[in-house]
């Protein structure tokens, strides 16, 4: 992958992160302030992206929506990683029957189509950000755990691990010193490349009205507002979709470049 792509990725990511962090400074308008007189205004100097059906400033809502998207992405990814690593190490290094059982559960979890799983969960527990995080963890953990498990299994019979066993080292020490440092690198890279996927899940669930609850600004929710009024006020849909596209592209380009730099062996995988 060419370096310029990485640079483009960094710029996009910085824009999105900067916009989210400094949302209050950049956009003076309150993202949730309802102004019935200003409904459906097209983009102008006052409202860079126009306003929605409740007269809220879309530019401000988009920037604040970035906060939701990024924090959900980071938190859910970190949670998936923690759970995935622990379960993967247990499955890979533990007894055979436990491994078989865990793999079966992972496979069963993966056999739910993502959105179907999300729909089922939300039906049962109600729409919320927690539901989004739970869905992301349930979707990611089987994959992460499998990667760690496969590599742990391969390392289990590696000579340097057998050497540590023969020296009398316990399972904890072997996993910590000899296994984890050798398996975590590729997973971190893959997880960083999953950030755009997580952002898409959050936006998608919010689009269906199953994620954040109104009036909290979210890109998916804005997109849904735009979709409802797509024939008359297309700019709302554009305002909701554009940040999703730019963010996922930015993180993907950055992740690809990072992977090529740190771990060329993984090239083209995933």
């Amino acid at each position: 992958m060419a370096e310029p792509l990485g640079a483009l990725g960094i710029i996009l990511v910085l824009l999105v992160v900067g916009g989210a962090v400094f949302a209050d400074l950049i956009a003076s308008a309150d993202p949730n302030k309802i102004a019935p007189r200003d409904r459906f205004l097209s983009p102008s100097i006052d409202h860079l992206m126009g306003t929605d059906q409740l007269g809220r400033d879309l530019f401000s809502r988009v920037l604040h929506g970035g906060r939701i998207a990024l924090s959900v992405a980071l938190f859910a990814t970190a949670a998936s990683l923690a759970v995935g690593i622990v379960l993967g190490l247990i499955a890979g290094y533990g007894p055979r029957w436990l491994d078989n059982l865990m793999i079966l559960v992972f496979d069963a979890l993966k056999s739910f189509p993502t959105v179907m799983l999300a729909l089922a969960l939300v039906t049962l527990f109600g729409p919320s950000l927690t539901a989004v995080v739970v869905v992301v963890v349930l979707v990611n953990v089987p994959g992460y755990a499998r990667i760690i498990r496969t590599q742990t299994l391969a390392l289990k019979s590696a000579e340097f691990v057998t050497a540590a066993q023969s020296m009398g080292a316990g399972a904890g020490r072997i996993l910590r010193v000899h296994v984890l440092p050798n398996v975590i690198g590729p997973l971190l890279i893959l997880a960083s490349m999953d950030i755009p996927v997580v952002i898409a899940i959050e936006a998608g669930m919010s689009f269906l009205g199953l994620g954040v609850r109104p009036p909290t600004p979210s890109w998916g929710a804005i997109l849904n507002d735009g979709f409802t009024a797509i024939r008359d006020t297309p700019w709302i849909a554009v305002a909701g979709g554009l940040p999703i596209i730019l963010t996922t592209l930015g993180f993907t380009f950055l992740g690809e470049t990072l992977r090529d730099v740190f771990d060329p062996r993984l090239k083209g995988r995933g």
Partner: protein
Amino acid sequence: MLHYTLSRLGLAVLIVSVAMLILFSMIYLIPGDPAAVALGPRATAAMREALRVKMGLDQPVWVQFWNFFINAWQGDLGNEVLSDRPVSKVVLEQLPYTLALIAGGMVWSVALGIPLGCWAAVKRGSLADRLVGVLSVAVIAVPSFVVAIYALLIFAVSLRWLPAIGAGEPGDLGDQLVHLILPSIAVGLGWVGYIARMVRASMLEVLEAQHIRTARAFGLPDNQITYQYALTIAILPTITLLGVGIGQMLSSAVFAEIVFARPGVGKLVYDAILTRNYPLVTGAVLVTTVLFVLINLIADLIVGALDPRVRSSL
């Protein structure tokens, strides 16, 4: 091969069973009384109790699960709340629309993705390779529902080239196909990228293999090496990936059906959630899960049939 087929089949049954257990646990974990939730706030205590007995909620957990499990394997997913029709029947009515959409997305993404990936691998390092690489990554990154909405906005609303909503007139194949174009673009676009990348990566891996070097050392023509010696091996992981891909397309199909107001399982579930029609939701989730497992099973069997190493392993 028989052993392989049977063990794969057994595994698939096991996975579906565990998936049922997970789904059942989720239902069982619902805070509150499912009967009360199903009947709404205006129901009397007697009505709730009657429904509890009817739903078997008065029995121990394991009996409830066993009943659910046995009934589900027999195709009985309960009745939906609104019209009291069998859930399985309602879901199966909608399934063909979803399958048509997935097939549409799969066909064009395979037809484009495999040649692109092959081409990029053979022309490794060239401008074409890089271009395919960047475009693949880009189309993978953009979520399918955004593609769906933008496609709707551009081709249906602005340009008015293609119809925006519905699945077309029943019986009119041409109209149905026209209505399929935009949704299958939305569903398949990312998969062009996935497939191209996968084919490229596994082609490159195979082309490095010792036996390819041997084939070159025997002076075989490049085309034969690429297509007969390398692609036959490189295609195997791609077939597995396609099995997984159909599961992801089931997800994308939900969005595409909602955005383009198409009938289908996705639209069905979405509407069921809005009307709190829970048996329909869980039933549809189970059906799509079984479908997904079945497709993966088929992909595994195809790989097995194509790979002599698997074929002869008992």
